[in-house]
């Protein structure tokens, strides 16, 4: 199964094509998508924590499609890179941690929409529910850990040495 995916025409193209549009562009897109979703998330989180209070929280809801854009870019680029490197990534526990953190971050993003942005306080522009602070902190923690785990996925030997298993 893993071999079949890794040896599929698409995975081979991603991994081995000398075209600039193959591996390296997909890798670049993955960094851009990260910057978009985590960057916007960070500013939204800072506002929910109380910074720059003259920004109306309700208006930040318009940034959700842009965060979804970042996520979509990274889902496609990420699946492409995964197909190309499936046998090594599937044995890399740090990669599993990264996926789990992204899952938590996305669930948190949706919960923030329902509990914060759809709350009567925000909709009526009269305030922000106290839970917003928890969602903001959770978002920063999950995305930070996702980035740390994502970078460490590239260094399995380093992780094995420092953590004790790999």
């Amino acid at each position, binding site marked *: 199964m893993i071999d079949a995916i890794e040896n599929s025409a698409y995975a081979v193209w991603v991994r081995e094509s*000398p*075209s*600039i549009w193959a*591996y*390296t*562009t997909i*890798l*670049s897109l993955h*960094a*851009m998508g*990260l*910057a*978009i979703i*985590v*960057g*916007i*998330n*960070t*500013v939204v989180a*800072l506002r929910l924590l109380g*910074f*720059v209070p*003259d*920004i*109306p929280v*309700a*208006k*930040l809801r*318009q*940034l959700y499609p*842009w965060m979804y854009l970042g996520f979509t870019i990274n889902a496609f680029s990420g699946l492409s890179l995964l197909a190309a490197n499936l046998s090594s990534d599937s044995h890399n526990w740090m990669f599993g941690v990264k996926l789990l953190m992204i899952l938590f971050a996305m669930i948190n993003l949706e919960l923030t929409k329902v509990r914060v942005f759809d709350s009567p306080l925000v909709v009526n522009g009269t305030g922000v529910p106290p839970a917003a602070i928890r969602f903001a902190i959770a978002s920063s923690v999950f995305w*930070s850990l996702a*980035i*740390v785990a*994502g*970078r*460490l996925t*590239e*260094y399995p030997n*380093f992780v094995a*040495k*420092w953590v004790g298993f790999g």
Partner: protein
Amino acid sequence: MMDTIANLMLKTGLDNYVATHDWVWPVCEILHFFGMFAIIGTVGLVDLRMLGVGKGIPIASLERFVPIGVLGLALNMITGFIFVAGNPVGGPKEYLGNMAFLIKMSLILVAGVNLLVFYVFGIARAANATAPDGSAPLSAKLVGAVSLLLWFGVIYFGRFIMYNDTLLNAWGL
């Protein structure tokens, strides 16, 4: 010129430090990614708002997050310097002679000029005067579009540094 810069960088002894401390490189990479999203999240969001996204968010208020982007840029200049001066295998020359790296540095420079244009020619003032629900002036839209293109270009060519040969082959160099 390149030799002089490379030799100055080697005098820091960073290459030796990086070679003997295996945590430096991965930790700097993690920090470099944090700096990257800090820039895109703050500067990029002001650019997007000037282009008409997120009406109702006052541009001047959004600009108050930009110092975080500047902090990110500073962080990335420090970690970036460690990558170049501390490159344990190929040395600084591997970067200084790398087409993708040189394009990336040029794009950052142009982004700096773009920022200067934004502040010196009164475009920032005009943008800040935009009503929360209003459209930024055309000059601000242009600066925003150029800024977004440049910063995403920085990420694009940054990722190509390790795959410089792909770029050279594609361009027939």
